[in-house]
């Protein structure tokens, strides 16, 4: 079920995120995730930040003990990969607004890359707490996307939340769709800005995962399971859920505030 593969490349993207590249030939599309096993440690769900070709990649942000461990992985180390799992972004819209908060850029960059590659127009509202945490800014520029930056502390781009930047962009231009990933409260605000303008929004969601197969309920989100019904969810599915932007389940399954 799992492939044990060597890490072939390691890139320190920001002080808190690292990209690990590895050989993995299974076909994958933007939005999908893999379960990454750090032998002797844990196995966690990580969206693919590089989906195309025989070499895939994940970009991991240091959050808990295991993801911090991931930051110390050197090239040549072996990891276990299973997947890809989950659904994908619909890449057909021609004019896309990408709203990215922090490490959310890891999910959105491969989607934007495919969209730019097929001739769609992509605008990226790229947000982070401060300049060094802006993830994949050069990658977004290199693919031909128009990039606007917002940092909480004003160290780069406009000072303020990326949601305010997104609102300004939505007010001034007509987009076919918004793709967003970041803290859940942020995505909820993006929906609040886009829905009244009848612009559909797709959010990449995350929850604790154990099986990633739709069996164990660890990633239950209302009537859905993030591992099989997501991670990409349309706003229409999320807006009615009392848990969205408010609660998730901890590893025991207790419903706790985000």
């Amino acid at each position, binding site marked *: *079920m*799992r492939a*044990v593969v060597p890490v072939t490349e390691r890139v320190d993207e920001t002080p808190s995120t690292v990209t690990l590249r590895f050989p993995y030939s299974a076909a994958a599309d933007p939005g999908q995730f893999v*379960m990454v*096993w750090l*032998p*002797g*440690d*844990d*196995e*966690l769900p990580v969206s693919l930040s590089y989906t195309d070709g025989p070499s895939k990649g994940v970009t991991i942000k240091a959050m808990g003990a295991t993801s911090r461990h991931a930051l110390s992985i050197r090239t040549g180390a*072996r990891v*276990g990969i299973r997947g890809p799992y989950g659904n994908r972004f619909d890449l057909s819209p021609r004019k896309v607004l990408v709203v990215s908060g922090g490490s959310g850029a890891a999910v959105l960059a491969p989607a934007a890359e495919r969209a730019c590659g097929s001739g769609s127009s992509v605008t990226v509202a790229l947000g982070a707490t401060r300049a060094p945490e802006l993830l994949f800014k050069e990658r977004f520029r290199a693919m031909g996307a128009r990039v606007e930056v917002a940092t909480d502390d004003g160290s780069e781009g406009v000072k303020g939340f990326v949601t305010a930047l997104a609102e300004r962009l939505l007010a001034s231009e007509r987009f076919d769709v918004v793709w967003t990933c970041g803290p859940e409260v942020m995505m909820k605000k993006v929906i609040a800005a886009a829905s009244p303008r009848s612009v559909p929004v797709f959010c990449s969601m995350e929850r604790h*995962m*154990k*099986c*990633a*197969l*739709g*069996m*164990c*309920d*660890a990633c*239950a989100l*209302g*009537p859905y*399971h993030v591992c*099989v019904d997501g991670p990409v969810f349309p706003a229409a599915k999320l807006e009615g859920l009392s848990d969205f932007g408010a609660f998730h*389940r*901890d*590893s*025991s*399954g*207790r*419903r706790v505030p985000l």
Partner: protein
Amino acid sequence: MAELAVRCAGLELRNPFLLASGIWGESGESLAGAWKAGAGGVITKSIGSLPRAGYPNPTVETYERWGLLNAMGLPNPGIDEYPREIEIARRSGATVIGSVFGGSPEEFAHLAVRMAATGVVALELNLSCPHAEGYGTEIGGTPEDVEKVVRAVTQKVALPVIAKITPNTADAAALALAAQRGGAAAVSAINTLRAIAIDVHLQRPVLAHGLGGLSGPAIKPVGLACVWQIFEKVKIPIIGVGGIASAQDALEYVMAGARALEVGTQVTFDGVAVFGRLVRELSALLDELGFARLEDAVGVAHRASSVPPG
């Protein structure tokens, strides 16, 4: 059209297919979802006294569509938090059976009382959890312990009590007999088979906990053998579980002696749509074989001449 409604352990079930414990059972909305998809009843996740995170990942390994190995470690939100989820499930109209586990007869009894108060229609005792004093052995591993646990529970609650029998034993029928002596209304057989997977590149077990439980189609012949042997020894009804993927699998269990069934691993492979499919297919199969009611097929395989007693 054959009648699929069954009466088992004092419960009226609209069809014999129950959602097995451990699948989709952490959230009330998931339990409701399985009910709406056509399950005859839903069994909750096994709930303990305290919230439990379970073992670290990796917690699962799959073998194509014929097996699933899990070492989840009984993650559950604990009996204080869980009633909220049962309430959500019950509001959907679901027939909910509460599963509990404990490390001692006293803990089982305490949990049984708490679970009975949530409005579930029956209890299922997960006897494959570790014995508090047994250094990892299953609490339901000996007839003595099974009888003690079941008796401690049935003395405290009026609801039907179902004892889930482990296959990790030389004599499943003896365990089932002990449950009957303890006052169980029914037994369910089987829980998962003790198993392990090794990664030869990393030279270590695949699952974080090492040993786990095997489920899915691979264990069906073992589950059937346990039901077969139990049927010969006990009077109380049997709920068959282990690798049911088709109506034919279900009917094998019924003909071996089961009155109702649980489906778990197949939900992983097919989603909860499996319940609708199994109901349709079983109805058609019974029609084809000339059974007017599923109940008419219970244990019929034992009547064939010259089958030696198990």
